[in-house]
């Protein structure tokens, strides 16, 4: 009981506690270590003494003291400034500041973790560690790598931040749009990593898709008027709504066309649609809003056969102008084929076939196989299903493509 309360409190407070320390002491790595120590102390003490009235203040006080202790003990890395600042404050002012509404702490922390000096995987790892408050072992397990590898990724990310002189402040007005975009992309990457997983999840106590939704919700709370943040949250909700139907009892991947739609999460669909209805009329329509709108059209069709493909093809047309990408062209081609005729969709793939970067991409062949099959070209479909199955690195997709190949007349 206390353990789950503790976990809840921790996940809610981690970014605020770290934010409060960072505002005062600066170095991300040192502050993270101190916050981790405070969490360990809470695990030891709260079950015996009970959860304190103000858990955030308690955690900040303990973390601040640990930061001082560590700096004292660690004479090789003695950082005069940190110790002086810590002595002066002794954690007290930090707590006072933190008890003021600190809505932006999470956001500022997120901006720091998504600093342009970092590679995307580093931004992802650091955000999960610092903003979401996950342990290194949890992140490593979620990404199926050893904890040592994840530790190295995190150390490298912190070192890069230090080198770039990144600070725990709001980015300038010029930097802000790019930084928000990076934060949204990081949330979406974490979501996709979790959502596309069909197995191995039982080994992982953290559901990455839900974690990503929790993170983007926090960003949305801090920036309620940002259209793409709202769009990304809507997209994740509308996609996550399909989770209960995307894997069958034996763990096989069920494609959208064959999913049991009665198992879709209506609550998430309603929330996603409502968000879109608030956001779309405001004018600026970016790629996340468009993708969310497409997901909403799928969500509103009671069967696959009822899908409004004409509307979806128009949305993909807008998306291919707002954010052109080979993956968008592929989906656009499917929508056009479904709305009009397979040949029209197939014609759209020709340009991609000529692109050397796409020639090793399994989805190009999977989509082409599907459209050729619809067009009655069994031989061509077989060849393309075979090639797609050869190229994919996804086990469930490979099984699915092999199944389609075997089912051809």
């Amino acid at each position, binding site marked *: 009981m206390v353990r789950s309360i503790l976990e809840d409190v921790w996940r809610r407070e981690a970014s605020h506690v770290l934010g409060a320390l960072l505002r005062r002491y600066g170095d991300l790595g040192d502050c993270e270590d101190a916050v981790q120590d405070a969490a360990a102390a809470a695990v030891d003490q709260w079950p015996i003494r009970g959860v304190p009235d103000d858990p955030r203040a308690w955690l900040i006080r303990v973390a601040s003291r640990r930061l001082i202790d560590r700096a004292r003990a660690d004479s090789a890395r003695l950082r005069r400034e940190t110790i002086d600042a810590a002595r002066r404050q002794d954690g007290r002012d930090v707590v006072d500041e933190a008890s003021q509404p600190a809505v932006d702490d999470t956001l500022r922390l997120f901006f720091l973790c998504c600093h342009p000096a970092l590679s995307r995987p580093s931004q992802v*790892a650091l955000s999960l560690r610092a903003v979401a408050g996950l342990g290194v072992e949890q992140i490593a397990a979620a990404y199926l790598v050893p904890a040592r*590898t994840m530790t190295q990724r995190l150390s490298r990310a912190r070192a890069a931040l230090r080198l770039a002189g990144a600070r725990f402040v709001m980015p300038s007005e010029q930097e802000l749009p790019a930084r928000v975009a990076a934060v949204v992309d990081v949330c979406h990457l974490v979501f996709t990593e979790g959502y596309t*997983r069909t197995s191995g999840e039982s080994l992982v106590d953290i559901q990455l898709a839900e974690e990503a939704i929790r993170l983007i919700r926090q960003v949305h709370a801090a920036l309620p008027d940002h259209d793409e943040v709202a769009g990304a949250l809507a997209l994740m909700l509308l996609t996550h709504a399909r989770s209960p139907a995307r894997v069958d009892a034996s763990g096989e991947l069920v494609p*959208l066309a064959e999913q049991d739609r009665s198992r879709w999460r209506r609550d998430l669909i309603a929330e996603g649609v409502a968000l879109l209805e608030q956001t779309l009329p405001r004018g600026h329509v970016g790629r996340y809003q468009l993708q969310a709108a497409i997901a909403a059209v799928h969500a509103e069709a009671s069967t696959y056969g009822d899908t409004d493909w004409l509307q979806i093809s128009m949305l993909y047309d807008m998306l291919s102008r707002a954010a052109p990408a080979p993956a968008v062209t592929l989906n656009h081609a499917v929508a056009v084929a479904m709305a009009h005729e397979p040949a029209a969709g197939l014609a759209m793939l020709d340009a991609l076939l000529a692109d050397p970067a796409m020639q*090793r991409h399994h989805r190009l062949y999977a989509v082409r196989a599907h459209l050729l099959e619809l067009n009655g070209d069994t031989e061509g479909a077989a060849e393309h299903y075979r090639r797609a199955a050869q190229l994919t690195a996804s086990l*469930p997709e490979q099984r699915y493509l092999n199944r389609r190949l075997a089912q051809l007349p």
Partner: protein
Amino acid sequence: MKYVILIHSNPQPWGHPTSDYVAAHQELPAAVRQRLDAEFEQVMSELRANGELIGGEALGDPANARLYRWQDGAPLASDGPYSEAKEHLAGFFLIDVDSQARAEEVAARFSGPAETVELRPMMWPGGNDQ
């Protein structure tokens, strides 16, 4: 994206690092050998520092292999090596990198005289539903 880098080699006698026991490598001028060794150390520390290295192992002499083949409905054991090929699987590295291009760049740097380096993608348990 995860990949395995397989090192196929035939060190004589069997030993690691394999390049120390491959004649074609030993015949290189000392300066070239030193450069290749240093480059290998460089790529390994780069992979570690980047958090791109998942792991790796050196394998024992293929003469010590035990092989299990199915015969008459039951496994039949025999002594290795697995094949009479000139090269044997000598070791492997697992990496997690950003792109196929990066994986190819890394794998190329593992190659050396008279050895074959094989880069293979690892399958993952997820997939798209669209």
